[in-house]
């Protein structure tokens, strides 16, 4: 097991190295001169040259890459090109914290609800309940996030004012309760995306397991129905679901661009879009590296979790 983890961590490092090469290469081919873009068309030759020198844009590309990567690994993520040239790292870290809060809240809501719906749909296969759950979960998945987001804002935040749920989440301070209030609508929107997916997967998993002979064995032992389902069936049926949930964590942290925009939520995704628009190279590189890291980490956790929960998997 420990050897497997070491190997997977080495692989993670390789992934990050390849990612860094790709993202560095990509930022180089974005059209337009960075110095010109940042300083404006009126900037003089001298100002442009100074800017390039300050940010090392004159160095040969391999030198730039090594300098950037070395800095990144040691914690110096460079400075933003935007006015005041703030350091990149605290900015990214702050946004990362916000994104993780949103991801956590989303998981707390979506996982129990969607698993419950999936199990119910499977146990009452082909009944009206199953059909209802299918229709509901598929229709909310089909809607784009900005549509569900706007519906929630208009319907709940503005429609039922007494709930006191804010439509926009601009204040990343305050008590836990304030936080939860701000997070409910964005995380509901993200839940809608995950809901259908997890519920369908759970349903399929439960149906698969119900057909297996060990379920008959458990029944013919005389176990009560709920023990057959909760102890025997779910233990196996949820294995694929759990790994998919772990994988979705990567998306929840780095991929909620639309939701963050709709709710004006200061997450990592929104920051990335800004960085692309402003050609804020060091910022963009840092965000992509962090996002990919979480994707890869989520993948690793998913595999480990699967192995821990499934005694048939031997990690070597």
């Amino acid at each position, binding site marked *: 097991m420990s050897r497997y983890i070491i190997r997977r961590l080495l692989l993670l490092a390789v992934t990050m190295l390849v990612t860094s090469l790709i993202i560095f290469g990509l930022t180089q081919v974005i059209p337009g001169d960075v110095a010109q873009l940042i300083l404006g068309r009126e900037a003089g030759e001298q100002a442009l040259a100074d800017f390039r020198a300050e940010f090392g844009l004159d160095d040969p590309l391999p030198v730039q890459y090594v300098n950037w990567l070395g800095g990144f690994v040691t914690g110096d993520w460079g400075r933003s090109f935007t006015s005041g040239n703030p350091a990149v790292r605290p900015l990214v870290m702050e946004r990362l914290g916000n994104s993780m809060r949103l991801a956590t809240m989303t998981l707390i809501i979506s996982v129990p609800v969607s698993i419950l719906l999936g199990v119910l749909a499977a146990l009452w296969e082909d009944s009206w309940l199953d059909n209802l759950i299918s229709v509901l979960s598929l229709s909310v998945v089909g809607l784009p996030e900005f549509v569900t987001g706007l519906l929630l804002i208009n319907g709940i935040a503005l429609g039922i004012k007494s709930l006191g749920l804010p439509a926009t989440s601009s204040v990343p301070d305050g008590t836990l309760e304030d936080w939860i209030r701000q997070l409910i609508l964005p995380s509901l929107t993200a839940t809608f995306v995950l809901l259908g997916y997890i519920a369908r997967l759970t349903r399929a998993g439960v149906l698969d397991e119900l057909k297996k002979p060990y379920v008959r064995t458990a*029944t013919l032992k005389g176990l009560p129905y709920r023990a057959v389902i909760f102890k025997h069936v779910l233990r196996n049926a949820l294995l694929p679901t759990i790994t998919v949930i772990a994988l979705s964590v990567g998306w929840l942290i780095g991929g909620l661009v639309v939701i963050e925009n709709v709710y004006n939520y200061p997450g990592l995704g929104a920051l990335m879009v800004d960085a692309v628009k402003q050609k804020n190279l060091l910022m963009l590189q840092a965000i992509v590296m962090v996002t990919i890291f979480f994707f890869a980490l989520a993948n690793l956790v998913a595999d480990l979790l699967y192995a821990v929960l499934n005694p048939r998997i031997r990690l070597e």
Partner: protein
Amino acid sequence: MNSTIPVIEVNNLSIDYQLGKRWLNAIRDVSLRIDPFEIHGLVGESGSGKSTLALALMRYLAGNARISSGEILLDGENLVPKSEHEMRHIWGKKLSLVPQDPLAALNPSYTIGEQIAEVTRLHEGLSKQQAFSRAVELLAKVKIADPEAVVRRYPHQLSGGMQQRVTIAMALSTQPRLLVLDEPTTALDVTTQAVILDLFRDLIHDNKAAALYVSHDLGAIAQMCDRVTVMYGGEVMASAPVHPLYAAPLHPYTMGLLASIPRPTEGVETRLPTIDGVAPSLAERPSGCVFAPRCPVALPICFDEKPPLEIIDTGRMGKCHRWREIRSGELVMQTAPLEKVAASLPPDDNYVLMAGGVSKRFGSPSLFTRLVGGDSGYVQAVDDVSVRVRARSTLGLVGESGSGKTTLARSIVALEVADDGQMTLLDMPIANTLAGRSQVVLRELQMVFQNPNDTLNPYQTVGEALARTIRRLSSRAMTQTEIRAKVNDLLDEVRLTAEYADRYPAELSGGEKQRVAIARAFATDPALVIADEPTSSLDVSVQAVVLNLLKDLRAREGASYILISHDLAAVSYLADWIAVMYLGQIVEEGDTEDVYQAPSHPYTEALLSAIPAPDPTVQRGNIRLEGDVPSPRNIPSGCRFHTRCPRKIGAICEAQEPPWLDAGDGHRIRCHIPIDELIAMQSTPPDSERNEVSL
């Protein structure tokens, strides 16, 4: 009838299945009784309804099934009106199931101990601690070595035999009134089956339980059961104590089943009697006697009128219009004389295939393992094996699972690339890789696989599948008409009508699929066909058809076979030369008759001894192989068989690889015991006492 209260009594039970909007009758008017201490056998082919009936005895039905009439009395109490909730107090306590496929029947995510303890905690209110120590005791009772360690293992970490012991420990944990054993040894090797059958019989008697033993294996039934019920098409055909049922069957179906079993005593030139036709599906069960369409002695009345289930003697019942004529001897069944196969040239001395020094290992260490070091365990599946096949002959390869026989076959057809070894086909050297082989080699060397369900493309008709093989491999370009004609010829060869060309595999029965697979193999007029367990997934009556077909084709087409099987009786029916494999090596080879007689390698002797004879009067050989085949990752030193050998003579077996002993006529045995001593030890081989089954 005697006066004891039966453990279970079924009266006029009928069960229907819902298919779409229709209810189809699956079990019709079945009556059955099992007395205390009785082991009752339930035999029948697939589709006969035996599994449905076995589970229905436990009042357990599939979601789309219903009991339409009849009663099931457990100790006099009717189970039919009981709800599922009420049944949960009886299941696992008074009625227990030993399932068919133990690995699938155990929950993969819980330890053995947990799964056994669950039953006693539920029904006997034991604490967690008590239940676990009880589980250890139960495992010891089913003769599992080191039960303290096994309770903490997961099902997949145990061998098939161990898994089946676990399920029986589980079933016996509450001292149930009735055990239902649903094909409990079908998935096991013959050696393991022998050990498990002994264990079952002892345990059932020790526990004073009654048991229903469901099987399609007439040998296992004969050795296990006190009384037997024969089912066909959802109805009871016959029910009798085991001795008269086998010695003097009164139902044409029972007679047909018994006759179609291949027996090692018959010569190579005979054909097996078969039961023509296939079992009817639920929707097309005849209104008269269900067996009439396949019955060789059916009269017009049999098609019009369903015969009643009559009591013939005490404890003996039959459902046939003609049982009186059969008993009085007026009616003699035509199955008795064995038909000869078409005359063929005897095997000649040219070798079709010569394979020398074939080796195959799996799981070479990965790059990472090599860098980090550590256990580089690989599996030596085939270790320096040489085989030769003469023209127009059949080489039988036998051995338990894990013996390497399938890997050897796959290496010969290059589905696996042999690491080592030279092969020549028809005196041409051939490459070990598929890519290195010419069209000619592909044409001359064909394979029939074990499971016909997996080897036919479900989206291709039979005709398309055959035409594709013809087109791909024929030696010259052929027109559509020629191909079509060839397809029809092939179907005719395997005794299928031309209409089958337009059918999809899903529309065929198991036996028909296997016949198509054989037709496909013969599409290229091969010199050598390798058949890997070609009949192991088929019913005994269908197996007889396929074995006859293979024999006919050999005579007509002059082909040779390598026949791989764990069923020594089936092998002996077809093979004239046999090689016995153990852990990747051949331990004995020789003429079929010689291999089945003394002297034998102790492993061959044990394999033969383990076969349950389809005759209750024959005492089975008493040699049992304890333990499992050692892992091919750690092959034992010296003689590979020494860890399980009942005839081990001492340290020499552990230290030195045994020499090849010559027993004459090319019969060779790899053993440290001299030939004379082997003959002395084995002077009464299990086969010599076998009585012929009179029909």
